[in-house]
Protein backbone atom coordinates (compact mmCIF):
# COMPACT_ATOMS: atom_id res chain seq x y z
CA UNK A 1 0.00 0.00 0.00
CA UNK A 2 1.78 3.15 -1.18
CA UNK A 3 1.51 6.04 1.22
CA UNK A 4 0.64 9.04 -0.95
CA UNK A 5 2.03 11.42 1.64
CA UNK A 6 5.53 10.05 0.93
CA UNK A 7 7.85 11.77 -1.55
CA UNK A 8 7.14 11.01 -5.22
CA UNK A 9 8.94 7.94 -6.56
CA UNK A 10 11.84 8.80 -8.81
CA UNK A 11 12.32 6.75 -11.98
CA UNK A 12 15.79 5.42 -12.44
CA UNK A 13 16.87 8.05 -14.88
CA UNK A 14 17.20 10.08 -11.72
CA UNK A 15 19.57 7.47 -10.37
CA UNK A 16 22.28 8.56 -7.97
CA UNK A 17 25.33 9.65 -9.93
CA UNK A 18 28.55 9.30 -7.96
CA UNK A 19 31.48 11.66 -8.57
CA UNK A 20 35.01 10.34 -8.63
CA UNK A 21 36.85 12.13 -5.80
CA UNK A 22 39.79 14.29 -6.83
CA UNK A 23 41.99 12.18 -4.56
CA UNK A 24 41.34 9.03 -6.56
CA UNK A 25 45.05 8.66 -7.28
CA UNK A 26 45.74 8.15 -3.57
CA UNK A 27 43.41 5.15 -3.34
CA UNK A 28 45.97 2.43 -3.98
CA UNK A 29 49.68 1.87 -4.70
CA UNK A 30 49.23 1.38 -8.44
CA UNK A 31 47.29 4.63 -8.90
CA UNK A 32 49.96 6.50 -6.91
CA UNK A 33 52.76 4.96 -8.95
CA UNK A 34 50.92 5.99 -12.10
CA UNK A 35 50.99 9.59 -10.86
CA UNK A 36 54.70 9.36 -10.09
CA UNK A 37 55.41 7.85 -13.49
CA UNK A 38 53.59 10.66 -15.27
CA UNK A 39 55.33 13.32 -13.22
CA UNK A 40 58.80 12.05 -14.23
CA UNK A 41 58.20 13.92 -17.49
CA UNK A 42 58.61 17.26 -15.70
CA UNK A 43 62.24 16.90 -14.55
CA UNK A 44 63.14 15.40 -17.94
CA UNK A 45 61.70 18.45 -19.69
CA UNK A 46 63.26 20.84 -17.19
CA UNK A 47 66.76 19.43 -17.65
CA UNK A 48 66.48 19.54 -21.44
CA UNK A 49 65.46 23.19 -21.19
CA UNK A 50 68.50 23.84 -18.98
CA UNK A 51 70.61 22.22 -21.68
CA UNK A 52 68.99 24.49 -24.25
CA UNK A 53 69.85 27.49 -22.08
CA UNK A 54 73.48 26.39 -21.91
CA UNK A 55 73.61 26.02 -25.69
CA UNK A 56 72.12 29.48 -26.03
CA UNK A 57 75.02 30.91 -24.02
CA UNK A 58 77.37 29.42 -26.64
CA UNK A 59 76.16 31.99 -29.15
CA UNK A 60 77.52 34.71 -26.87
CA UNK A 61 81.04 33.73 -27.77
CA UNK A 62 83.92 32.57 -25.55
CA UNK A 63 83.69 35.52 -23.17
CA UNK A 64 80.00 35.02 -22.45
CA UNK A 65 80.05 31.25 -21.96
CA UNK A 66 80.27 29.68 -18.51
CA UNK A 67 79.59 25.97 -18.16
CA UNK A 68 76.93 25.12 -15.57
CA UNK A 69 78.65 23.25 -12.78
CA UNK A 70 77.47 24.69 -9.47
CA UNK A 71 76.45 22.39 -6.61
CA UNK A 72 72.86 23.53 -7.18
CA UNK A 73 73.07 22.50 -10.81
CA UNK A 74 74.57 19.13 -9.87
CA UNK A 75 71.82 18.53 -7.30
CA UNK A 76 69.21 19.52 -9.92
CA UNK A 77 70.82 17.12 -12.40
CA UNK A 78 70.82 14.28 -9.88
CA UNK A 79 67.08 14.69 -9.29
CA UNK A 80 66.45 14.89 -13.03
CA UNK A 81 68.64 11.83 -13.58
CA UNK A 82 66.58 9.78 -11.11
CA UNK A 83 63.37 10.91 -12.80
CA UNK A 84 64.80 10.18 -16.25
CA UNK A 85 65.87 6.67 -15.26
CA UNK A 86 62.44 5.96 -13.77
CA UNK A 87 60.89 7.32 -16.95
CA UNK A 88 63.10 5.08 -19.08
CA UNK A 89 62.41 1.94 -17.07
CA UNK A 90 58.64 2.44 -17.04
CA UNK A 91 58.61 3.43 -20.70
CA UNK A 92 60.71 0.50 -21.94
CA UNK A 93 58.68 -1.96 -19.85
CA UNK A 94 55.39 -0.66 -21.21
CA UNK A 95 56.50 -0.38 -24.82
CA UNK A 96 57.54 -4.02 -24.68
CA UNK A 97 53.88 -4.82 -24.14
CA UNK A 98 52.62 -2.55 -26.88
CA UNK A 99 54.86 -3.36 -29.81
CA UNK A 100 53.85 -6.41 -31.77
CA UNK A 101 56.58 -7.77 -34.00
CA UNK A 102 55.71 -10.64 -36.28
CA UNK A 103 57.92 -13.70 -36.46
CA UNK A 104 56.33 -15.59 -39.34
CA UNK A 105 52.74 -16.25 -38.25
CA UNK A 106 53.34 -15.75 -34.53
CA UNK A 107 54.27 -12.66 -32.54
CA UNK A 108 57.55 -12.16 -30.71
CA UNK A 109 56.80 -12.73 -27.00
CA UNK A 110 56.44 -9.42 -25.08
CA UNK A 111 59.29 -10.25 -22.70
CA UNK A 112 61.69 -10.62 -25.62
CA UNK A 113 60.62 -7.25 -27.01
CA UNK A 114 61.18 -5.65 -23.61
CA UNK A 115 64.63 -7.23 -23.34
CA UNK A 116 65.44 -5.98 -26.83
CA UNK A 117 64.36 -2.49 -25.74
CA UNK A 118 66.71 -2.60 -22.78
CA UNK A 119 69.53 -3.91 -24.95
CA UNK A 120 68.88 -1.01 -27.29
CA UNK A 121 69.05 1.38 -24.35
CA UNK A 122 72.40 -0.02 -23.22
CA UNK A 123 73.88 0.20 -26.71
CA UNK A 124 72.66 3.75 -27.26
CA UNK A 125 73.95 4.80 -23.84
CA UNK A 126 77.42 3.38 -24.53
CA UNK A 127 77.58 4.95 -28.00
CA UNK A 128 76.45 8.39 -26.81
CA UNK A 129 78.79 8.27 -23.80
CA UNK A 130 81.69 7.42 -26.08
CA UNK A 131 80.75 10.27 -28.43
CA UNK A 132 80.47 12.75 -25.57
CA UNK A 133 83.89 11.77 -24.23
CA UNK A 134 85.45 11.92 -27.70
CA UNK A 135 83.84 15.28 -28.51
CA UNK A 136 85.08 16.51 -25.13
CA UNK A 137 88.60 16.25 -26.50
CA UNK A 138 87.93 18.58 -29.49
CA UNK A 139 89.45 21.98 -29.32
Amino acid at each position, binding site marked *: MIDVSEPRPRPFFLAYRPTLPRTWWMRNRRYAFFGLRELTAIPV*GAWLLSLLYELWRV*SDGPSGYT*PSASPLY*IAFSIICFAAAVLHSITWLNLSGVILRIKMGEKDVPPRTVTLANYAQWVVVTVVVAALLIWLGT*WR
Partner: protein
Amino acid sequence: MSNFSLPETSRLPATEHHYKPARLHGLWWGLFAVGGMTAALLVPVHILFQGILAPLGLVSVPGKVLGPNGLDPAASYHSIAAALANPLVKLYVLALIALPLYHVAHRLLYVAIDLRLGLHRSLLALLFYGGAVLGTLLTIAVLLSVP
Protein backbone atom coordinates in the same frame (compact mmCIF):
# COMPACT_ATOMS: atom_id res chain seq x y z
CA MET B 1 16.77 -25.99 -41.76
CA SER B 2 16.04 -25.44 -45.44
CA ASN B 3 14.16 -22.23 -44.61
CA PHE B 4 17.22 -20.75 -42.98
CA SER B 5 18.92 -17.98 -44.93
CA LEU B 6 21.66 -15.53 -44.08
CA PRO B 7 20.98 -11.82 -44.13
CA GLU B 8 22.25 -10.04 -47.24
CA THR B 9 24.96 -8.35 -45.31
CA SER B 10 26.23 -8.24 -41.77
CA ARG B 11 26.35 -4.48 -42.00
CA LEU B 12 23.38 -3.35 -39.97
CA PRO B 13 21.90 0.12 -40.39
CA ALA B 14 24.06 2.88 -38.98
CA THR B 15 23.55 3.69 -35.34
CA GLU B 16 22.42 7.16 -34.34
CA HIS B 17 25.83 8.19 -33.15
CA HIS B 18 28.12 9.68 -35.81
CA TYR B 19 31.77 9.21 -34.88
CA LYS B 20 34.65 11.06 -36.54
CA PRO B 21 38.28 9.88 -36.32
CA ALA B 22 40.25 12.38 -34.25
CA ARG B 23 43.34 12.78 -36.41
CA LEU B 24 44.78 15.65 -34.37
CA HIS B 25 44.65 13.49 -31.23
CA GLY B 26 46.53 10.86 -33.21
CA LEU B 27 49.20 13.38 -34.17
CA TRP B 28 49.83 14.49 -30.59
CA TRP B 29 49.87 10.92 -29.38
CA GLY B 30 52.32 9.94 -32.13
CA LEU B 31 54.64 12.81 -31.14
CA PHE B 32 54.22 11.82 -27.49
CA ALA B 33 55.29 8.27 -28.33
CA VAL B 34 58.33 9.29 -30.41
CA GLY B 35 59.33 11.88 -27.81
CA GLY B 36 58.96 9.34 -25.05
CA MET B 37 61.18 6.80 -26.78
CA THR B 38 63.76 9.50 -27.52
CA ALA B 39 63.75 10.64 -23.91
CA ALA B 40 63.88 7.10 -22.59
CA LEU B 41 66.87 6.10 -24.67
CA LEU B 42 68.92 9.31 -24.74
CA VAL B 43 68.21 11.61 -21.81
CA PRO B 44 69.69 9.61 -18.90
CA VAL B 45 73.18 9.36 -20.41
CA HIS B 46 73.23 13.09 -21.22
CA ILE B 47 72.19 14.03 -17.69
CA LEU B 48 74.71 11.60 -16.23
CA PHE B 49 77.67 12.92 -18.23
CA GLN B 50 76.83 16.57 -18.84
CA GLY B 51 74.84 17.17 -15.66
CA ILE B 52 76.69 15.15 -13.04
CA LEU B 53 80.03 13.57 -13.98
CA ALA B 54 81.55 16.51 -15.89
CA PRO B 55 80.52 19.17 -13.33
CA LEU B 56 82.00 16.90 -10.64
CA GLY B 57 85.26 16.94 -12.57
CA LEU B 58 85.26 13.24 -13.40
CA VAL B 59 85.15 13.49 -17.19
CA SER B 60 85.34 16.04 -20.02
CA VAL B 61 82.39 16.51 -22.35
CA PRO B 62 81.57 19.20 -24.94
CA GLY B 63 80.85 22.36 -22.98
CA LYS B 64 82.47 21.14 -19.78
CA VAL B 65 86.17 20.48 -20.24
CA LEU B 66 88.48 19.85 -17.32
CA GLY B 67 91.47 22.08 -16.83
CA PRO B 68 94.15 22.21 -14.15
CA ASN B 69 91.77 23.96 -11.71
CA GLY B 70 88.32 22.50 -12.35
CA LEU B 71 86.47 23.38 -15.55
CA ASP B 72 88.33 25.42 -18.14
CA PRO B 73 85.82 27.93 -19.64
CA ALA B 74 87.81 28.63 -22.81
CA ALA B 75 88.41 24.98 -23.63
CA SER B 76 84.82 24.22 -22.70
CA TYR B 77 83.58 26.87 -25.10
CA HIS B 78 85.73 25.65 -27.95
CA SER B 79 84.67 22.04 -27.55
CA ILE B 80 80.97 22.79 -27.60
CA ALA B 81 81.27 25.30 -30.42
CA ALA B 82 83.27 22.82 -32.44
CA ALA B 83 80.71 20.08 -31.80
CA LEU B 84 77.74 22.28 -32.69
CA ALA B 85 79.41 23.43 -35.87
CA ASN B 86 78.69 19.98 -37.25
CA PRO B 87 75.19 19.92 -38.87
CA LEU B 88 74.68 16.30 -37.82
CA VAL B 89 75.25 17.28 -34.20
CA LYS B 90 72.77 20.13 -34.66
CA LEU B 91 70.14 17.68 -35.94
CA TYR B 92 70.81 15.30 -33.08
CA VAL B 93 70.47 18.07 -30.51
CA LEU B 94 67.23 19.21 -32.16
CA ALA B 95 65.79 15.70 -31.82
CA LEU B 96 67.15 15.32 -28.29
CA ILE B 97 65.52 18.51 -27.01
CA ALA B 98 62.47 19.11 -29.21
CA LEU B 99 60.92 15.63 -29.45
CA PRO B 100 60.68 15.00 -25.69
CA LEU B 101 58.98 18.40 -25.33
CA TYR B 102 55.89 16.93 -27.07
CA HIS B 103 56.05 14.00 -24.70
CA VAL B 104 56.16 16.33 -21.69
CA ALA B 105 53.37 18.51 -23.09
CA HIS B 106 51.06 15.54 -23.74
CA ARG B 107 51.69 14.08 -20.30
CA LEU B 108 51.16 17.40 -18.53
CA LEU B 109 47.90 17.94 -20.40
CA TYR B 110 46.55 14.54 -19.39
CA VAL B 111 47.78 14.84 -15.80
CA ALA B 112 45.86 18.10 -15.61
CA ILE B 113 42.78 16.35 -17.05
CA ASP B 114 43.06 13.24 -14.85
CA LEU B 115 43.61 15.27 -11.69
CA ARG B 116 40.88 17.72 -12.65
CA LEU B 117 43.10 20.75 -12.16
CA GLY B 118 40.29 22.98 -13.31
CA LEU B 119 41.31 24.88 -16.40
CA HIS B 120 39.41 24.34 -19.62
CA ARG B 121 40.86 21.58 -21.74
CA SER B 122 41.32 23.61 -24.93
CA LEU B 123 43.17 26.26 -22.97
CA LEU B 124 45.49 23.68 -21.42
CA ALA B 125 46.07 22.03 -24.81
CA LEU B 126 47.00 25.38 -26.31
CA LEU B 127 49.31 26.08 -23.38
CA PHE B 128 51.12 22.76 -23.40
CA TYR B 129 51.22 21.82 -27.08
CA GLY B 130 51.87 25.44 -27.95
CA GLY B 131 54.70 25.41 -25.45
CA ALA B 132 56.22 22.37 -27.14
CA VAL B 133 56.01 24.05 -30.55
CA LEU B 134 57.55 27.19 -29.08
CA GLY B 135 60.30 25.11 -27.53
CA THR B 136 60.97 23.49 -30.89
CA LEU B 137 61.26 26.90 -32.57
CA LEU B 138 63.54 28.16 -29.80
CA THR B 139 65.78 25.12 -30.17
CA ILE B 140 66.04 25.69 -33.92
CA ALA B 141 66.80 29.37 -33.32
CA VAL B 142 69.54 28.58 -30.81
CA LEU B 143 71.10 25.96 -33.07
CA LEU B 144 71.07 28.36 -36.00
CA SER B 145 72.60 31.15 -33.91
CA VAL B 146 75.67 29.05 -33.16
CA PRO B 147 78.18 29.32 -36.02
